[in-house]
């Protein structure tokens, strides 16, 4: 920092010839540095694309190239802008900072929304306009109606049980000496992928089939048999299989709800609770008249988050049943239409339907943001 302040006045005291030389050198340097950066990065790209080096080498090069490349691009662009006259550099610098982020957002989210909207009015290979045909398909086709029904089940039951159990655990753990252990256990599945969780629960639901001396190795069927019932192929019996899949989401998402609700509960002033108890309110009364109203805002946030989550749900269904046996959901139907049946138009229409379903939350977020007056 001190160096720069020291150099600046010196520059102004140079003679005209040296001034020219220095500036020529600057311009040359300004050209060479980006070119070198570009060439190095391009070579890295070629290497990663074509090389047959051992996987470990490729992986290491990829990590260094990716992370270093982005850092280098920022550094070089900023350096270039700082070479410009102060007025220009001050005007351009914000865009060096904000530009890449905004550009990527534009390419990956803003523009695709419009492009998907256009695609949704075109045919399967996007060569002809078909009007609302894809939307008619999306709202009338049997498999889509089934998906809507299932997403509604996911939305209602998945959200209700995730938030409900999360709230119960948060409230109870608050009064337990072993709070951290209990909370850690419930929170743990957050780190597990849906594919991994799919395997875990597939094993819980495992069904050995019928036959003499068959041993059930799935926990659920073993419990059924031990209680004198009959083993069931849980994942193929509609409509109950939907609920067995929803259990997986509840298992994964309860921890999320619990942690956030728990911190909200800790924020309730202790005096408020004490006062109510002294006044003779029992614990249920305290819970419904004080705890719930105090955390209402957080409760809404958690609920909307999980609702959005349940709308976009894909991996569980994909891995567990592939959408068969009446368990299809919108996001899986989107995948099937685009990547199995090659119906780009229909898939786009389904994606737009998903977007429309999340619009209320987007509006809510924007309104909240406006109220905060962050700017």
């Amino acid at each position: 920092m001190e160096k720069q302040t020291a150099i600046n006045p010196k520059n102004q005291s140079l003679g005209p010839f040296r001034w020219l030389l220095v500036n020529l050198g600057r311009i040359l340097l300004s050209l060479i540095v980006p070119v070198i950066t570009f060439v190095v990065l391009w070579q890295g790209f070629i290497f990663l694309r074509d090389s047959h080096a051992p996987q470990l080498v490729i992986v290491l090069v990829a990590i260094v190239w990716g992370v270093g490349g982005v850092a280098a691009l920022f550094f070089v662009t900023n350096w270039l802008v700082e070479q410009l006259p102060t007025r220009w550099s001050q005007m351009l610098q914000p865009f060096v900072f904000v530009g890449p982020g905004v550009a990527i957002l534009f390419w990956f989210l803003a523009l695709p929304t419009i492009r998907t909207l256009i695609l949704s009015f075109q045919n399967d290979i996007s060569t002809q306009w078909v009007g609302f045909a894809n939307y008619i398909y999306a709202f009338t086709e049997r498999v889509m109606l089934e998906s809507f029904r299932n997403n509604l089940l996911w939305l209602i039951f998945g959200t209700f049980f995730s938030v409900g159990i999360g709230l119960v655990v948060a409230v109870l753990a608050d009064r337990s000496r072993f709070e951290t252990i209990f909370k850690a256990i419930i929170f743990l599945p957050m780190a597990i992928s849906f594919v991994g969780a799919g395997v875990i629960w597939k094993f819980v639901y495992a069904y050995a089939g019928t036959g003499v001396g068959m041993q059930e190795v799935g926990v659920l069927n073993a419990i059924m048999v031990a209680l004198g019932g009959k083993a069931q192929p849980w994942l193929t019996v509609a409509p109950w299989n939907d609920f067995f899949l929803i259990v997986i989401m509840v298992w994964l998402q309860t921890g999320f709800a619990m942690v956030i609700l728990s911190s909200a509960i800790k924020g309730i002033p202790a005096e408020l609770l004490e006062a109510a108890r002294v006044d003779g309110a029992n614990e249920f009364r305290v819970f419904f008249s004080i705890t719930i109203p105090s955390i209402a805002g957080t409760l809404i946030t958690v609920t909307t988050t999980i609702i959005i989550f349940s709308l976009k749900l894909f991996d569980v269904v994909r891995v567990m049943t592939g959408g068969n046996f009446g368990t299809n959901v919108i996001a899986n139907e989107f995948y099937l239409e685009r990547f199995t049946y090659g119906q780009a138009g229909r898939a786009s229409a389904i994606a737009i339907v998903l977007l429309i379903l999340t619009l209320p939350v987007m509006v809510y977020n924007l309104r909240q943001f406006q109220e905060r007056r962050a700017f």
Partner: protein
Amino acid sequence: MAAKTQGFQQQRRISSLLVNLTLTIICIIWLIPVVGLLITSFRNSQDIFSTGWWTIFPHRQYVNTRQIIVDPSINLDGNFQVEGITTNFTDLRNGVTTPNGEKLTWYGNKRTRTIGVAELKWLGFSTNMTLQNYLAVLGGKTVTFKDATGRDIETRGPNLGGAFLNSLAVTIPATIIPILIAAFAAYGFAWLNFPGRKLLFIGVVAMLVVPLQIALVPILQDYTRLQLNGTYLGIWLAHTGFGLPLAIYLLFNYMATLPREILESAYIDGASNFTIFTRLILPLSVPALAAFAIFQFLWVWNDYLVALIFLNPQTQVVTMALASLVGERGQDWHLLTAGAFVSMLLPLAVFIGLQRYFVRGLMAGSVKG
């Protein structure tokens, strides 16, 4: 008064007992699936199919002790006497319990004339554990077998080791790149003045909940044109794009609360924006950066949809490898359980190690599309 306090205390003790009991039950339900997975991944494949994983714990079980050969002179069509009880073939097929607690079971069909006798015995911890499943899943060995026409068919075993490396190559840059870009952008939004600042940021907030399905079809078109399908760069950019709204939003919220005086004094000292950002803002924002980093790391590592669309079999990540294992070897529990655990190992470690930051990131609170 004293009696009342005592009653109150007792009530307290009971309620605390109830609380802990309820929580313990919920936690056991939560843990059982994972425990089952973990135990199964270390068992022999034959054991996995013949007995449940819970049988490795001490328990009472029928153990075969001896065999009885039924005398050929006995007619098996009606009732007959064996071990002091009267029974018939059908019952014996299903197993008959004698008064002294032994269980008789007929082997096979009538002609074997063999009855197995089993006694209820206590079994201790099973020590029959193996690492073979993990080696099989990580190795990616090539298996050859002959098909119906006699040709050799080569299939590669599940190569989760390779997929694990790919996951690292995808996840590490796909975590750091969005953080870097978002940190620059958040600084720009929070502390620099430029036309369109507010409008652009409202755009960022609007993007928070956009479902990523909306982007997949057009982006795939672009990638096909740019030949980015299946490349690391392609999936880094995709994850960056989908993670950026939340990243910018979280980091902006954090950076905007940093005290203005620090920045102003640095600026007066002649530091450029770039220096202020790298020397001052980034170090001060470490908690927010860490929070988002864990978020994004878990999200990318556990992602299946984006990887499925933008990667190919050469660059497949663990979730893809595991999912295809489920598809192809759906009943091979010894491979599936070991594979699932391999895929969970790193995110669990990161998560447990850095949970505190993660929770803080969640609190800063938002929804991701």
